[in-house]
């Protein structure tokens, strides 16, 4: 009996979180900012992690988290209750980071932008710390984006390619390139590096 009571009191965390999200989304869609704050508190860590890994820059990641949640607030009426809020806000965050990246890339002329070999060397050589997060952050943009989406967050290559506006084959090639760079950076394939 006690076990049943415990099970009722503490339903599966994920299901409970989804239920609480759904209630908060419904209230937020009616303009309840406190409900929206609850959503922010629950999801900001995960959204920030995603933005940080995709952008590789702390300040950019923080800006993107803010922009993503503001965009989500504005788009709440379009949110489909069949979807999970966590999935939805992650998609918005990915789009926010990529839109910012594309905007910057279009406006700023990077001297290394057309030289992938230079970027590869810089990614491997310039960061002294042997740390996985730092090594990911130092990857060239294209390789980092695919690695984070596919390697860390489990997107399929089709999904990643769609998000990034690239071909599926390019996504696969970028993942391979990212793994090679990381392996070299972390000393996992010293002989080949």
């Amino acid at each position, binding site marked *: 009996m006690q076990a049943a009571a415990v099970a009722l009191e503490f339903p599966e965390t994920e299901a409970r979180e989804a239920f609480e999200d759904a209630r908060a989304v419904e209230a937020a869609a*009616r303009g309840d900012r406190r409900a929206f704050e609850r959503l922010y*508190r629950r999801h900001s860590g*995960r959204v920030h992690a995603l933005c940080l890994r995709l952008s590789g820059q702390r300040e950019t990641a923080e800006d993107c988290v803010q922009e993503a949640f*503001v965009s989500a607030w504005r788009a709440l009426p379009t949110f489909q209750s069949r979807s999970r809020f966590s999935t939805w806000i992650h998609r918005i965050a990915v789009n926010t980071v990529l839109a910012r990246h594309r*905007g910057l890339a279009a406006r700023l002329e990077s001297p290394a932008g057309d030289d992938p070999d230079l970027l590869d060397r810089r990614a491997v050589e310039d960061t002294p710390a042997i740390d996985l997060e730092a090594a990911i952050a130092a990857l060239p943009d294209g390789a980092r984006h695919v690695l984070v989406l596919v390697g860390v967050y489990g997107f399929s290559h089709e999904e990643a390619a769609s998000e990034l506006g690239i071909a599926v084959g390019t996504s696969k090639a970028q993942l391979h390139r990212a793994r090679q760079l990381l392996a070299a950076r972390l000393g996992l394939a010293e002989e080949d590096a």
Partner: protein
Amino acid sequence: MSDRDRNDFRGLDARLAALPRDLPPARDLWPGIDAAVTHSTGPRRRWPFALAAGLAVATLGVVLGVRLARDVPPAPVALGPSDNVLVVSRLKSTEDADYLATRASLEKTYRERIALLAPDTRARIEEDLALIQHAHEDIRNALARDPGSRVLLQLLESTTEQEFSLYSTVGRNTEPFAPRTRT
């Protein structure tokens, strides 16, 4: 790819998959979001259909028109570190004579035409204008406390644009013999 590579990648993939999903930001980002959603055109806004439709069309025209008049490039979709200067310079231009003259002209037309609307519609529009102007001041104050916030800078520009759009929309929708725009 050699067997050793495969093994290395397997280990690497495992490390990637084991990375923590939750990395809270170093500072609380909610105040900036709260300021933004408080004054944004959020989920609750309701406009009379004709004016709402007019506003959607007018917004683009007015924003482009004002920008063209001021000879300033359109706002970037997303801002980067170097964009602060651009946005701030645009905001500074809101003190310019051209901006003030344009705003005064739009506001004058708005004041004349708002009286032509039904009392209920007029009240709602006045309420929205007050909200926009109040938001503008709040965002300015928030920006004084957090001058580096790009979100606040964008919002400040957004409220300026919303105010212009509102004036223009009322003007267009109340024009007695408004000729249809040819496309």
